[in-house]
């Protein structure tokens, strides 16, 4: 019989309570009349019965509860809509932020066994992640045993001549790199060993994006030839749309073949290296081996590998700390918002259940057990959270693209993050968890109260406890909203700080674009000089153009281009590695970018290979090496020649607004031997105009086409856009955080208002008695306001403390704003006061309007 009772456990408690004894009795009776064989049969029947009938009974109850819930909710549509909106905001915000955080921080890279893929760098003084030279890379492949494969790639930006000239960002990679990632092409094949050999056939693989954009997604391109920088290459494959390597800007892959010339200079930082660890080899093991290999290479080549070791990091571990922190803060903020939403729902449910106490008490008295009541109330909270969750997913669907800017471009993942199954599962889990967690508490309390309290009209059994719970919930909401408010405020102030950083140039009215000169036709300075002069001459003649120049790179677009200088009598060390941001220029660069020339002169067109070698340096360079004397006229060596300083320019944030930049050195483009330093060949055109810079673009394109019809014009943009992009992730984050903070403070205000209103309606009689006994109305007002003020003070102080702690954790993002910034705190406190006051006002006024006679008559 005990066994049969165990079987009954599958039925809902209320059902078991009602009919359990009957069923036991029935089973006993049958068993008594049964033979041994029939008894076995009886047991089988009983088990089958429990398996089929018990779930149905559960469903019956659920259906009944749902019907009841829908009826109850449609009776109070205002409540239902409010609750659903609150949950939709919370779940939607969390889901949208999760979909970004998942992409950037959690999800493994879309390659096979990504946890064994690593990046290997040289770790040189001041540069922990230096691209290795081909010679060092070759030695690594021969001297290490930690890696299954060690592959390399380098930038391969080319002019593609297909239907029209086009600049394409590509990557040249060792032919076994793509197989190492474990990827397959969508069309055609990957590279062969023959194509990876020096002097082998020229092959190229296209990205899906390039294939669609420039080849009309034509499958017959496989085997066709395309001209890249004057070389005919055969298209052998097209990659699938979701394949990115090494970043999402790359549109083309070609085999990397290194001739003997590549291995001459061990300072030639040219390669990026990716490897696959052998199974069982740890990251630390690989690091130890790489460091000992580099130590050996330092012994063999003491000059080039001086103090150089290696850095080994997981390929997936390449998101900058800033991106990480931005997204972590957002995640924290969205969780805060979700908690506020949940406490709000819990609070709403408590009020609602309290208002229905009589109805629930009646049901309890009619024999509905506690389990049955809890079940009913939980069904209500889950219904609300599921409806809210569904609305939240819709909300997230539209909100996620707005967050796409937070996905760093360096990640090999798409920026347009779709809501996929993973994210939907997350949203579902959050929905269920919140519905249960924040429904159980009120449901449990109320059902207990309903059971213990009799039908007596004014039994207040549990009211005190419930009010305390609600008060705690409201205080928690205030805490979380202040936390959000201050965090958003601090980051807003930091954004202001960053935006007010002077980039070192005047971005207004400047157009920048790229005309990359193919190395074959423009191999000599003379050939390039002709091109520059013709183009610049015509551009300078355009109406509105004030200055124009060619330079190696544009600041903030190209952050690298770092070269070592040799200073007479000084050796490089950790604190000063003697590295500078080196640029080759035509004349007019400083005018075009509006960089102030502090002293001396601009580089001029008469600075040729035959005239004295000169350089313009930045103020920080001059100050570093000639802190007291005058730098003009001093000499130092850069890019193979000793040069005399003829001018000093203002410092420029080459690496971006928030990064430290190397001092800058500018040299005339003619003062280099033909074929040397081709990477630094001027290709970026900068034009300052009085009008709209982009309106100039068509004329510039026409001029370039007239001079060289095969040359693509690419990367056309204004410098203002370039500078604005610097703060794009910050602006997105701050905007989202600000929005969260506003929602949080509104929700907290609503929560406070709800609590106080409820309190006033519950205490109408008490207030009535007080007034009847002659208490002044101001004392009633004070009573209500005091309750609000106490909650605001408790929640507010906790919020201020938490905010300071949070601010400390992201101090590095604050761009000089202190975590205890008085301005932010004062504003936050003022907003919190305003919120408290407006939340308390209506209930307070309602308390004032209580008519003692009416209130007492209701007794």
């Amino acid at each position, binding site marked *: 019989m005990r066994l049969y009772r165990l079987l009954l456990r599958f*039925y809902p408690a209320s*059902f078991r309570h*009602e*009919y359990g*004894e*009957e*069923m036991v*009795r*029935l*089973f006993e*009776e*049958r068993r008594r009349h049964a033979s041994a064989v029939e008894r076995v049969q009886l047991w089988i*029947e*009983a088990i*089958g*019965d*429990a398996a*089929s*009938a*018990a779930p*149905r*009974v559960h469903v*019956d109850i659920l259906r*009944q509860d749902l019907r009841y819930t829908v009826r109850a909710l449609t009776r109070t549509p205002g409540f239902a809509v409010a609750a659903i909106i609150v949950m939709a905001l919370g779940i939607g915000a969390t889901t949208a932020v999760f979909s970004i955080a998942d992409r950037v921080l959690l999800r493994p890279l879309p390659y096979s066994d990504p946890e064994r893929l690593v990046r290997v760098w040289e770790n040189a003084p001041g540069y922990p992640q230096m691209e290795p030279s081909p010679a060092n890379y070759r030695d690594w492949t021969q001297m290490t045993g930690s890696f299954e494969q060690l592959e390399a790639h380098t930038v391969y930006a080319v002019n593609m001549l297909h239907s029209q000239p086009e600049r394409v960002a590509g990557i040249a990679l060792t032919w076994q790199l793509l197989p190492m990632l474990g990827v397959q092409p969508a069309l055609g094949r990957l590279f062969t060993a023959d194509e990876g050999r020096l002097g082998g056939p020229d092959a190229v693989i296209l990205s899906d994006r390039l294939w669609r954009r420039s080849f009309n997604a034509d499958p017959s391109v496989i085997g066709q030839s395309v001209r890249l920088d004057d070389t005919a290459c055969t298209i052998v494959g097209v990659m699938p749309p979701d394949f990115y390597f090494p970043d999402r800007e790359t549109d083309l892959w070609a085999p990397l073949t290194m001739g003997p010339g590549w291995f001459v200079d061990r300072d030639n930082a040219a390669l990026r290296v990716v490897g696959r660890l052998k199974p069982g080899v740890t990251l630390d093991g690989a690091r130890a081996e790489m460091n000992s290999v580099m130590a050996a290479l330092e012994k063999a080549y003491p000059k080039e590998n001086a103090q150089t070791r290696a850095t080994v990091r997981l390929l997936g571990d390449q998101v900058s700390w800033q991106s990480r922190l931005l997204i972590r803060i957002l995640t924290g903020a969205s969780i805060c918002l979700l908690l506020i939403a949940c406490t709000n729902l819990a609070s709403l449910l408590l009020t609602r259940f309290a208002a229905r106490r009589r109805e629930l008490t009646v049901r309890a008295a009619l024999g509905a057990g506690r389990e049955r009541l809890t079940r009913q109330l939980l069904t209500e909270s889950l219904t609300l959270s599921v409806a809210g969750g569904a609305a939240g997913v819709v909300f997230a669907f539209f909100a996620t693209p707005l967050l796409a800017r937070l996905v760093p471009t360096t990640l090999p993942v798409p920026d347009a993050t779709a809501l996929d199954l993973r994210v939907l599962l997350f949203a579902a889990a959050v929905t269920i968890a919140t519905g249960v967690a924040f429904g159980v508490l009120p449901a449990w309390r109320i059902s207990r109260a309903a059971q213990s309290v009799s039908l007596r009209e004014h039994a207040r059994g549990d009211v005190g406890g419930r009010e305390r719970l609600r008060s705690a919930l409201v205080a928690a909401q205030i805490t979380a909203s202040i936390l959000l408010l201050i965090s958003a405020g601090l980051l807003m102030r930091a954004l202001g700080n960053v935006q007010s950083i002077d980039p070192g140039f005047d971005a207004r009215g400047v157009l920048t674009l790229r005309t990359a000169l193919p190395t074959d036709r423009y191999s000599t300075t003379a050939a390039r000089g002709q091109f520059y002069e013709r183009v610049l001459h015509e551009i300078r003649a355009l109406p509105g153009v004030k200055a124009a120049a060619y330079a190696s790179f544009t600041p903030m677009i190209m952050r690298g281009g770092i070269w070592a200088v040799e200073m007479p009598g000084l050796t490089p060390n950790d604190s000063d590695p003697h590295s500078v941001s080196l640029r080759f220029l035509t004349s007019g660069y400083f005018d075009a970018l509006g960089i102030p020339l502090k002293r001396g002169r601009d580089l001029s067109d008469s600075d040729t290979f035959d005239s004295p070698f000169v350089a313009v340096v930045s103020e920080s360079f001059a100050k570093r090496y000639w802190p007291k004397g005058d730098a003009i006229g001093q000499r130092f060596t850069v890019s193979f020649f000793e040069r005399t300083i003829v001018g000093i320019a203002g410092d420029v944030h080459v690496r971006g607004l928030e990064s430290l930049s190397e001092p800058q050195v500018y040299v005339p483009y003619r003062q280099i031997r033909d074929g040397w330093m081709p990477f630094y060949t001027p290709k970026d055109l900068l034009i300052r105009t009085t009008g709209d810079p982009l309106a100039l673009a068509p004329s510039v394109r026409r001029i370039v086409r007239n001079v060289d019809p095969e040359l693509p014009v690419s990367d056309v943009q204004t410098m203002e856009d370039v500078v604005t992009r610097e703060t794009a992730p910050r602006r997105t984050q701050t905007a989202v955080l600000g929005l969260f903070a506003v929602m949080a403070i509104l929700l907290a205000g609503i929560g406070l208002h709800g609590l106080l209103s409820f309190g006033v309606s519950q205490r109408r009689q008490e207030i009535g008695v007080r007034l009847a006994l002659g208490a002044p109305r101001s004392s009633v007002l004070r009573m209500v306001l005091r309750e609000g003020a106490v909650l605001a003070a408790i929640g507010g102080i906790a919020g201020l403390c938490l905010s300071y702690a949070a601010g400390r954790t992201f101090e590095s993002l604050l761009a000089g704003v202190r975590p205890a910034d008085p301005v932010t705190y004062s504003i936050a406190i003022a907003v919190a006061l305003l919120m408290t006051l407006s939340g308390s006002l209506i209930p307070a006024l309602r308390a004032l309007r209580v008519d003692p006679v009416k209130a007492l008559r209701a007794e």
Partner: protein
Amino acid sequence: MTFHILLALSDGERHGYAIIQDVAARTDGAVKISAGTLYRSVQRMQEQGLIEESRRRPAPDEDDERRRYYALTEFGTAVARAEARRLTQLVKLARASGFATGKA
């Protein structure tokens, strides 16, 4: 199922086991109700107001403290009648069309 239980209660109140036995007897053993199914139906029918727990008890010697007796409510009787009428109507139609034997 509901109709079977209504029929079983037509000549007076019964307890659960009796309902099962009565239904089996009426249908010559063709319809066997399991305990779980029976009480699920009972619960639903109680909620719908078709049957109620009887307050009257049979003679003391037959009574068992643990047993619960169920009886038709007025509504239950009305529903049983309506259902019987509906079925009769259907059978008439079936006969008229020649699908069933008997008087048309």
